[in-house]
């Protein structure tokens, strides 16, 4: 059974680099309207799974579908065009651009004015940029970053940059939102604000997946959780089920040692 058709699914995804199996034929289903958590120790393959879903990596085996359509042949850019966006574990903002401009890139895919509008002061070009700017300002204030629009990334602390990264991901009304460790580097109150924002974003037609090491965050905002270890799913279920799972406890206790 495919469950709801309104989902991003991966079937039998296998990915290896030079003989090292990073994903071992796993099945996942991320449903719209839910926040799905993806947890697991370092090196489990969480980011690699994101990379497969967005097309940055090509899995050797398996199929990825969204709303029932196969995504496998599509480039990352084409998947972005379908509204599948992500944030990066290692903040990937342009140091040349202001915070606002970095976030504006998140809506760029929805606008199409040609090159002439880039070089000449045309009506269409200016209107587009104004619309992009307005959208980006909205996203920034949603994440509590209002007032920092004209700062450069080099002038902000890492936690703020992560929020900017998230603002860039949510600004373009994504259909699938993949967040890779959104709370890393945030302090407690920032994390709480972020949790509230993410809950608010979780509308009925958004697929949201959160990779996170902060268990409080995962347990309190996620509807469902996948636990990944050595490239395989070891558990899946509600936060309560996952918390009670002996295998998961063992992995995390073992993981605590290092």
């Amino acid at each position: 059974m495919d469950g709801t058709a309104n989902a991003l699914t991966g079937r039998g995804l296998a990915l290896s680099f030079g003989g090292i199996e990073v994903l071992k034929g796993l099945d996942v289903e991320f449903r719209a309207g839910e926040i799905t958590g993806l947890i697991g120790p370092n090196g489990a393959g969480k980011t690699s799974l994101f990379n497969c879903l967005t097309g940055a990596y090509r899995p050797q085996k398996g199929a990825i579908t969204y709303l029932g359509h196969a995504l496998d042949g599509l480039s990352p850019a084409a998947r972005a065009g379908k509204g599948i966006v992500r944030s990066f574990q290692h903040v990937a903002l342009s140091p040349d651009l202001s915070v606002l401009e970095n976030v504006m890139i998140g809506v760029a895919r929805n606008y199409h004015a040609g090159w002439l509008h880039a070089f000449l002061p045309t009506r269409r070009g200016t209107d587009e940029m104004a619309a992009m700017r307005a959208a980006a300002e909205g996203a920034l204030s949603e994440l509590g970053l209002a007032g920092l629009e004209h700062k450069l990334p080099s002038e902000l602390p890492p936690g703020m940059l992560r929020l900017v990264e998230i603002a860039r991901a949510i600004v373009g009304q994504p259909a699938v939102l993949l967040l890779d460790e959104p709370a890393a580097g945030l302090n407690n109150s920032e994390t709480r604000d972020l949790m509230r924002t993410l809950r608010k974003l979780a509308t009925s037609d958004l697929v949201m997946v959160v990779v996170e090491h902060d268990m409080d965050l995962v347990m309190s905002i996620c509807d469902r959780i996948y636990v990944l270890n050595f490239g395989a799913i070891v558990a899946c279920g509600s936060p309560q089920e996952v918390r009670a799972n002996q295998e998961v406890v063992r992995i995390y206790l073992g993981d605590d040692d290092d």
Partner: protein
Amino acid sequence: MSDGLGNILLDLFPLMWSGMITGCLYALGALGLVMIFKSSQVVNFSHGNVAGFAAFLIYGFSSGVLLNLSWGVAVLLAMIAVVAIAFLIYAVISPLVFESELTATISTLGFGLIAQGATLLIFGADIVNLDLPIPRFSMSFLGLFITGYDLTVLAVAVVTIGTLFFVVDYTKLGIAFRAISENPFAAEVCGLNLRSIHLFSWIVAAILGVVGALLIVPTTFLSVTTVAAFMLQAFAAAVIGGFASLPGSLVGGILIGILMNLFTFYVSAEFTSTFLLVLILLALNVFPNGILARAGGSRV
């Protein structure tokens, strides 16, 4: 019919032979570029101009323009000068190498300009004759016309390249060089001194460049641009060999030598640079890791 084929073969073999001889020289140039690139990821655009400057120094030292020394001493002095120059260049750019290879690469263009200007200032823009003490004889062998020059080039190339490969494969220095070109960080952690290996490759490259430059001169004449132009073929050879492979650049050099000869003879002598451009673009796209590279995926 068979007569036409015979004629083609009659042309082809000598063309390939002489192409291979020049190709050996391109390979000498390319090996220097690749040595430097392998160790420090820098493309040395000053290679040709510095080697050209050295050839002029030998001319100056042996002809009475600067000094009136015997040929051997002149070569020795020029070698010392070139090693000193390599040392100087590396000293200036080494802080850049660790920051950005591309910036360091651009700065080698600066040294190339200075070397060219220095050559012009000291020796002028005129063409000069630099005679090498090469055995003058020729013989016919299997329809090939083989000269003393050919054999000299072959012998010098075999000895030089053989020595280089021996050093890289079997000596401690060579092993350190290979370790660093595989993984500079790990090699440094293991206690190898990056700078001394870099310097080793710069100095070896400079010497290879001078040898190549000296041997190419008898086929033409010596002017400010001859050697620099010759080094451009060496660039193509290095690119075709994958830029990071010593055996690759040897094969690349010989291939370029032969292909250029065939192209000049059968197609056109006027579009050689365009032919090189096409070769380089083709090589970079079809064999991005060089013609000798094993097929394999690259990391994302």
